[in-house]
């Protein structure tokens, strides 16, 4: 299963990005092959509608679970329709490697 995590940078030591639509990087982590991929967020600089565009981008990668600090009101119903699970982490100090090790428990 593929999981998307919002990240502030493109390395495993970087911290989780607390925003979803305007995060810096998406980390696509595959739980089966244990592979990670860092993709810069193409919608980061958009003026309007960054959230729904980011949903489309993440869904096109075949992700089934998204981990971030917060999800906006526009984004939640779209994820519900696509039956993608949302996970909210309230701790902005958590790093990407911490989250991946939690996922593997």
């Amino acid at each position: 299963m593929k999981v998307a995590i919002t990240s502030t940078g493109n390395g495993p030591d970087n911290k989780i990005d607390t925003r979803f639509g305007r995060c810096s990087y998406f980390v696509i982590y595959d739980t089966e092959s244990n592979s990670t991929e860092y993709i810069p967020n193409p919608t980061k600089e958009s003026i309007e509608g960054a959230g729904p565009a980011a949903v489309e981008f993440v869904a096109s990668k075949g992700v089934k679970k998204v981990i971030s600090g917060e999800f906006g009101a526009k984004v939640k119903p779209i994820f519900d329709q696509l039956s993608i699970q949302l996970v909210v982490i309230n701790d902005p100090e958590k790093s990407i490697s911490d989250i991946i090790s939690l996922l593997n428990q």
Partner: protein
Amino acid sequence: MARPKRIRRVTNPPHYIGFKPIGDSENNHPIVMNYEEYQAIRLNDFELYSQLVASGIMGVSRPTYTRIYESARRKVAQAFVNGQPIVFEGGKVYFDSDWYKCNHCGCYFNHPEKNRNLTKCALCSSENIGQLINNQEGEIEDVCVCPWCGLESINTHGTPCHEETCPDCNCRMIHKANLNNSEETIIKKKQ
């Protein structure tokens, strides 16, 4: 033209598509029950909420909720008496999933695949999870406007706007969605 229906919030849609009477029945024409009607019966007769609370959960006014509930009960009665099947389909609704909290890692997560039971945390797979109740985000806009001066105030759920008066010009308030063109021009003329 009638005002468009407000979209109803449904938190727990049924896990099955309908009901069928046992034994032979002559009338096999199914009764279509909307998701909002199912939700009304669930909130009122299963969760035992009052109609005022239940209407707040669904994001409609209290009288509208009563109309939905009435229609739902009539459909159930019709199906029971005539031995007709019931199918759940349609309705002006949006689905909002339930949210859970993990007591082990402290994260929050939702559960979009409602036909599967949830036992583990989505992040750390711990079984120490609890459901978040009364997570009323995305509240509907419920604003009363004065048709003369345009003063806006938040409507308290359960009391209609026309029972409130504007403190400045002492006239009856009106719901923002009902503010039609003629009244908008009144405000513009005033300005």
